[in-house]
């Protein structure tokens, strides 16, 4: 029996991260494809004094609330559940991304071409961590549409990092992005699968 064969009603959970800057459409995309209304987990974090003023040698602390979106898609017939995590894209949340990226299938980095630079921290993080990721350009109405090539160049992506366009409001579009990500992860997992030989000896 395969270790993955579901026993009873056990499911194999697989994480997918949806990262990107504020307002880029993370919550919208999780909601478009999740079988439940997206939930939000709020973590109140106390940030140590880095960059903040000190008063009489006492470190000032600041608290911030991080909202993470959660959604899921269960495939009982396949013994799987995809857990979707929408997470803010600022560098200061990297410690949180470690938890999320650990054991994740991969990440979707959502991009709004009006604020391309918001994607830099996520791109840098997933590249460094060797987490499979792709860029999904969420097209807002009336915004200038950059070609995937222009986005690729602006973000300094590696040649094998996929760049797609999507509409985060559309379930079909979100499904296509998920499919592309899993396909990409699979190609990375088997990088040197030999091509069938063209002419047998």
């Amino acid at each position, binding site marked *: 029996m395969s270790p993955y064969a579901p026993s009873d*009603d056990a499911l194999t*959970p697989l*994480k997918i991260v949806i990262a990107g800057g504020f307002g880029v459409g993370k919550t919208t995309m999780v909601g478009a494809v999740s079988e439940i209304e997206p939930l939000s*987990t709020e*973590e109140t974090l106390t940030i140590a004094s880095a960059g903040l003023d000190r008063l009489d040698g006492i470190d000032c602390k600041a608290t911030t609330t991080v909202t993470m979106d*959660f959604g899921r898609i269960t495939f009982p017939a396949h013994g799987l*559940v995809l857990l979707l995590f929408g997470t803010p894209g600022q560098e200061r949340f990297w410690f949180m991304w470690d938890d999320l990226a*650990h054991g994740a299938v991969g990440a979707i980095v959502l991009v709004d071409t009006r604020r391309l630079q918001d994607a830099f921290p996520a791109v840098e993080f997933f590249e460094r961590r060797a987490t499979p990721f792709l860029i999904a350009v969420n097209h807002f109405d009336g915004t200038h549409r950059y070609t995937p090539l222009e986005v690729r160049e602006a973000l300094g992506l590696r040649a094998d990092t996929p760049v797609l366009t999507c509409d985060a409001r559309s379930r079909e579009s979100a499904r296509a992005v998920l499919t592309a990500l899993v396909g990409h992860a699979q190609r990375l997992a088997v990088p040197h699968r030999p091509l069938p030989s063209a002419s047998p000896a």
Partner: protein
Amino acid sequence: MRTGDRTPWVVEPVSGPRPYVVTGGRTHSTHDLDLASLVKASQAGRGMELESEHELAFRLCLHGPVSVAELAARMRLPVQVVKVLLSDLLSAGAMVPAMPTVTVNPADPEILERVLVALRTL
């Protein structure tokens, strides 16, 4: 942390056959749980009397596997607190893991193929 000032949890029989699960003072979960870990309520747990937050977590897991992340969101509690609650419930046998015992490698081409096949049905 909300559980910080409590006495350690114990399971002890009270009058009658129902064990009573008291809540915990630990801040670290003793089980290896992460955001994606799935748990479900056990049959045995149905016969236990649980302290309020444990009871809520238990009830949310009555209908099949629930992830730590979802539970935290539904209970509006920090993930770390939920991990501690779940550790108590797992130790008491009120909940059981609801995922394969073998750690799944998310880069396993076979499992990724299964995800692709599943996504086609969406």
